[in-house]
């Protein structure tokens, strides 16, 4: 017998009779037999079912490669119309399914986009449904196109990219002005004054500039700086105006408010440091460029981006 006896000899329980173990019927060396432990029926039938499933699958879906081609399956049922009006009917494949789903989503979105296309930014902002849709869509556009420079929340980078969340606008903060800034881009230029003015003059002008935003400055220096600022010797007033309140058509900053986009005056601890920050700008000038986006974005996209930027914090 090949079966082993596991029952302890000293057990006083009655021995339960085990059914004889099934063997394959072969015997080697007289007594070596091979056990036959057949797979459970549910397993065997499950295996057959999966074979049948595979064959059905080959018939229905793309399956076998043949040279550079493959069997397409009999399901020839993906139909959709592309954006340029072409009718597509193809065998089952995930790429076509993706294209079809994307197309369906575009069509769903189109209904809202059409509404936005015909509405003014003012209408969008005043309408609850339109502004909600525009907000969600513009948020993605902003993240893709604008956030790299202006930062995800619009805070910008002092000295490089203007803050869009405050209420100071170099080029104007109305819907139309923001839209123009995005569509056509902007080129902010301030000439360098290091050649035109000497060190003392630059110091005096910086003193005057700080006095405009109510910093406590030296009276004599401020008076000299004001003279340079408002005369042809400096010529600052051409762009910044005699009041120092800037000029939106030139993108010239308002020097009288609390917002600083280039010289990080609020971060400086004392007046001297603040003045150095201002002097650096006067010496080197500014050359900033925002690229035009009308080549990359559609009219409607620019419109809703203007709405989004406007509501970031300080739109006018």
């Amino acid at each position, binding site marked *: 017998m090949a079966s082993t006896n596991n029952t302890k000899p000293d057990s006083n329980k009655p021995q339960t009779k085990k059914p004889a173990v099934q063997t394959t*019927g072969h015997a080697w060396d007289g007594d070596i037999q091979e056990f036959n432990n057949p797979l459970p029926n549910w397993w065997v039938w499950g295996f057959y079912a999966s074979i049948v499933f595979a064959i059905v699958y080959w018939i229905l879906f793309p399956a076998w490669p043949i040279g550079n081609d493959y069997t397409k399956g009999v399901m020839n049922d993906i139909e959709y119309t592309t954006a340029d009006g072409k009718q597509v009917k193809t065998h089952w494949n995930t790429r076509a399914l993706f294209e079809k789903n994307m197309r369906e989503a575009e069509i769903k979105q189109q209904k809202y986009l059409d509404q936005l296309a015909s509405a003014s930014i003012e209408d969008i902002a005043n309408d609850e449904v339109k502004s909600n849709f525009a907000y969600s869509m513009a948020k993605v556009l902003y993240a893709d196109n604008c956030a790299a420079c202006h930062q*995800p*929340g619009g805070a910008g980078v002092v000295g490089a990219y203007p803050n869009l969340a405050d209420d100071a606008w170099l080029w104007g903060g109305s819907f139309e002005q923001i839209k123009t800034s995005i569509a056509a881009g902007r080129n902010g230029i301030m000439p360098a004054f290091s050649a035109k003015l000497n060190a003392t003059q630059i110091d005096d002008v910086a003193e005057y500039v700080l006095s405009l935003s109510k910093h406590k400055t030296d009276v004599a220096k401020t008076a000299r700086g004001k003279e340079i600022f408002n005369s042809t010797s400096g010529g600052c007033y051409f762009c910044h105006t005699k009041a120092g309140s800037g000029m939106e058509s030139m993108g010239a900053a308002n020097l009288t408010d*609390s917002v600083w986009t280039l010289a990080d005056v609020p971060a400086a601890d004392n007046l001297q440091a603040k003045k150095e920050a201002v002097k650096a700008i006067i010496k080197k000038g500014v050359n900033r460029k925002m690229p035009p986006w009308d080549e990359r974005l559609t009219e409607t996209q620019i419109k809703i981006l203007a709405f989004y930027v406007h509501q970031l914090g*300080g739109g006018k």
Partner: protein
Amino acid sequence: MSETPTPHPEQQRTAIYPRSVKGFYRRIKTAIVILAYGVYFLLPWLRWERESGPSQAVIFDITARRFDIFDFTLFAQDIFWLALLFAFAALLLFFVTGIAGRVFCGYFCFQTLWTDVFMYIEHRVQGERPARIKLAESKWNAQKIFKIGLTHFLWLLVAFLTGIAFTLYWGNAPDLIVEILTFQAPFAAGITILFLTLTTYVMAGIAREQVCTYMCPYARFQSAMFDSDTIVVAYDSIRGEGKKGRHKPSKELIKRDKREQQGYGDCVDCGYCVQVCPTGIDIRNGLQYQCTTCALCIDACSKIMTSVGYPKGLIRYSSENEMQGKRTRILKPKTIIYGLVLVAVAVIFFWGLIARSVVDVSVRQVRQPLFVVLSNGDIQNRYAIKINNKTDRQMWLTVSLRGLEGAILDLGRFDKIHVSAASSSTFYVKIKMPPRKILKENKSFEFVLTNINEKSSNWTHTDNFFTPKKLFKQSVLNK
């Protein structure tokens, strides 16, 4: 090298042909089947008046992410109530099982209900137990093909209707039924109907008692809740077996006193209790895990006892203690603890469900950027107010501030917040603070939102107004 047929590794099912029986428990069971089927099949057709207009009384609308159960509307975020409901149901099951055994199995489980209906169909088509056994053993002929075929067809029909009825809970029944019948129904509906048709057919028609014996976890772990006081279907073996055991009612042994004199018990060994058992066990062997306490053997035995003129109750609802002549205790520590926990969960569940808020308000400070300096030197913080309106009414809210003196609240273009019925909206508000008014770097304050139509319903939310350290110091110096 013997070629003897070897036993199968798995146990083979022996076919069960339960005999029908009439009696008290059979009537209760039939009443429960009719009630359960009535509710299950008709409930999707009940209409209900709601604020948003008339609709289905019970509808689980997945695409709209809302479940409507009469006057309760549950949204996706309320789904944890389902977990509490399950906890409540499980505890109720434990509580009942501790006292009265497997009443759920025997009377209410859908496996029992549907198997009962399938057996009824089988009985009507193929006849009583002997006829069914004969039919099963006979050679295949036209009659056998017809009878077996008709049985399976009717089973599939009931299974299909079961699938359809289930599907109707998940959509507007009058529309959905038309879509199903014209093959326009969504794919998910088709798959659900197919799946439920197949599972109902297999479970109630083919697998039957094997579901309870091998598949159902509850059938196996319910023994943990049993004790000697648990009420089960039991055979009174002292009375039934006597001293010498059971005996057929032969001529000399028909009178009860004669049997007693000769030492035989009351069991006349007719085998009726075994024949009616849907799980194919002999209750006289004592409590067995296959027994679902369907109580049909009680009906069978009572009928026989009455016909031979013996008192009823040879097989009856009883407990182990009672059988041994002791008292059955209903109030035992286990029952009391289960009972207390059950009441606690029930109170939490129903009170919570009734008192749940139908409007969620949350306020979150915009953190990017955390603050902005405006051209006039004011500090501006922005906040996103999210309102989740779970009612069927649109609502308007006003916003005000509490505990932030000198602040200017800017709601933008809208002077009040509007939220449509059963939807959620996010609004951005700005708060501007002149530097000289700032008292702390991080000033805690409250948003107060008031429902315009119901002044009594308002929400407060505590948040912070942030001023950067440097600007705060400067504002202090400038004072």
